């Protein structure tokens, strides 16, 4: 019996949100009187496997093979199932990334297991695992209990605090790569890494976003918003209106049909706060609005605000931070 966590690798590097989840798994395992385990799949996993031990895994199940250098569902799901069996897993948890969600769903369906997709909390109650998640785009919260032998959950990034490594006492067990290259149907023929230095929205601590409020001079507006983001080491977000108008690419969109984010700080510049935008960022810890309209709905969710022209307020804020952070 154990709580098994998939540690996702991107180009050989660990997606750090997985450590949050592994630390949580250790806590749950303690309460359920079982152990925590990590699953690592890649072409080289030694370093990551050692790290998983220091982040608290009692056992690391690892598979290293050239066929595994890129995520492909067929071989990865086969290995995840192998690890679930070997670990006698009571729960299988993944980071709620695109791939984590897909792997969790596939393993759950094959194992006829219940799934809590995009869970935001996990806890133990009366010896049972309980997963918390929302449906109806954040408008209904529900608690799920599992009736299957195995419980599966994909968990939103940043649902739990980032742990410190603690040292290791666990062991690494190797899994056999079950498939040969000619048995794997999917072939990856080309790969382009995301721009370096770019901070991803879903795991950002701080997000600075721009909306249609930049319309008077969109390139200038996003330059100013971008400078504030850079000063704060923040990711750059946008409303759909800004994306649809072509001011900024879709990958920056926050909201219902964009990304769901949960940073500590969200600074909305020239964004009115439409329901569909709030659906994506309403869970931010602190929301700040910069808007020239005092009656914009965003102020009903914001903790702090400046009512002024963003073309003046944003650079002023950047300057104020530069002075303080220097």
């Amino acid at each position, binding site marked *: 019996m154990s709580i098994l966590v998939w540690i996702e690798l*991107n180009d050989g590097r660990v*997606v750090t949100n997985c450590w949050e989840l592994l630390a949580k798994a250790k806590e749950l395992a303690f309460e359920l009187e079982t152990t925590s385990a990590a699953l690592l799949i890649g072409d080289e996993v030694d370093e990551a496997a050692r790290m998983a031990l220091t982040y608290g895994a009692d056992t690391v199940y690892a598979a290293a093979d050239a066929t595994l250098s890129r995520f492909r*569902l*067929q071989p990865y799901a086969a290995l995840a199932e192998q690890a679930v069996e070997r670990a006698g897993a009571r729960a299988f948890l993944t980071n709620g*990334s*695109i*791939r984590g969600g*897909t792997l969790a769903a*596939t393993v759950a*369906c*094959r194992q*006829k*297991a*219940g*799934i809590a*997709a*995009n869970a935001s909390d996990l806890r133990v109650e009366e010896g049972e695992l309980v997963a918390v998640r*929302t*449906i*109806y*785009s954040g*408008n*209904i*919260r*529900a*608690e799920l209990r*599992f009736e*299957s032998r195995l419980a599966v959950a994909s968990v939103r990034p940043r649902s739990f605090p980032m742990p410190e490594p603690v040292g290791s006492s666990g062991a690494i067990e190797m899994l056999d790569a079950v498939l040969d290259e000619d048995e794997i*149907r*999917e*072939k*990856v023929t*080309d*790969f*382009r890494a*995301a721009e370096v230095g770019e901070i991803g929205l879903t795991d950002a601590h*701080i997000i600075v976003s721009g909306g249609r409020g930049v319309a008077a001079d969109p390139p200038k507006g996003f330059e100013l918003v971008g400078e504030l983001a850079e000063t704060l080491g923040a990711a750059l977000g946008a409303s759909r209106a800004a994306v649809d108008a072509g001011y900024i690419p*879709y990958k920056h969109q926050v909201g*219902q049909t964009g990304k769901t984010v949960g940073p*500590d*700080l969200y600074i909305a510049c020239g964004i009115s706060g439409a*329901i569909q935008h709030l659906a994506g960022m309403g869970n931010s*810890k*602190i929301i*700040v609005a910069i808007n020239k309209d005092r009656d914009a709905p965003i*102020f*009903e969710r*914001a*903790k*702090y*605000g*400046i*009512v002024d022209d963003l073309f*003046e*307020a944003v650079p*002023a*804020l950047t*300057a*104020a931070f530069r002075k*303080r952070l220097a």
Partner: protein
Amino acid sequence: MKVAVLIKQTPDTAELPKITVDEARSGEVGATMVLNPWDEFAVEEAIDLADRFSCESAAISLGRVGETDALKHALAMGVDSGLLVDEQVIGDGGEWETAEALAEAVKIADGEEGVSLVLAGKMSVDGNSGVIYAGVACKLGWDLLVNVTRIVDIVDGKLIAEQVFEGGQETVETPLPVVVSVAKEINEPRYPSFMGIRKASRAQIPVLGEDELQVGPSSTVRWEGMSKPEPERVEVRIFEGSTVEEKAEQLADALLAEKVI
């Protein structure tokens, strides 16, 4: 070849905040129902692929008998045919029963040509899971590609596609049959044409019920303790000042005091 597209009828996103716990529990939702916005991209892609590869397209939806607005929307956009799976076939089953019923419907929709590509949206705005297509792929025993931003080609029985994930973008090749969940970047969904709407309004949509397909029960989760998360009422603090710099200085200090920077 035939392309099937899985679509769900979901509440209008503007009305989602009004959904009550009772509605969520019973599934009897009073909101205006529309084609799930993420599925519009899948429908557009199905129509586009049917044109590119001279094949047929079919939209499949599991829902309530009589509630066909989403299917009619897909037909009005230009999908060749629609098929409704009566949600009663899954009883009070969850994701995997839904997936199994949809997989069975795909087989029934096969006709003579054989469905070799199933398209789906990214997620439903009510279920918010993004798991149904994974279940359908699993039940059919087909491969699955997710977050696909471009279907480059279908050639020699292989699908060539671009997919995006957090770490970058890949071009992949996989033999048909395959299930593909599409991302928003893939296309610009068209509006239904006037002719399309007229045609759709007259269309008869066949319904698959318990006589046509059976789904094994497999209760896997219990949904409990539903509640409505009330957004924390925070009283906003608007910084006053005679100049914008003054306001910005105060805001910067407040944020530093919050220790979030």
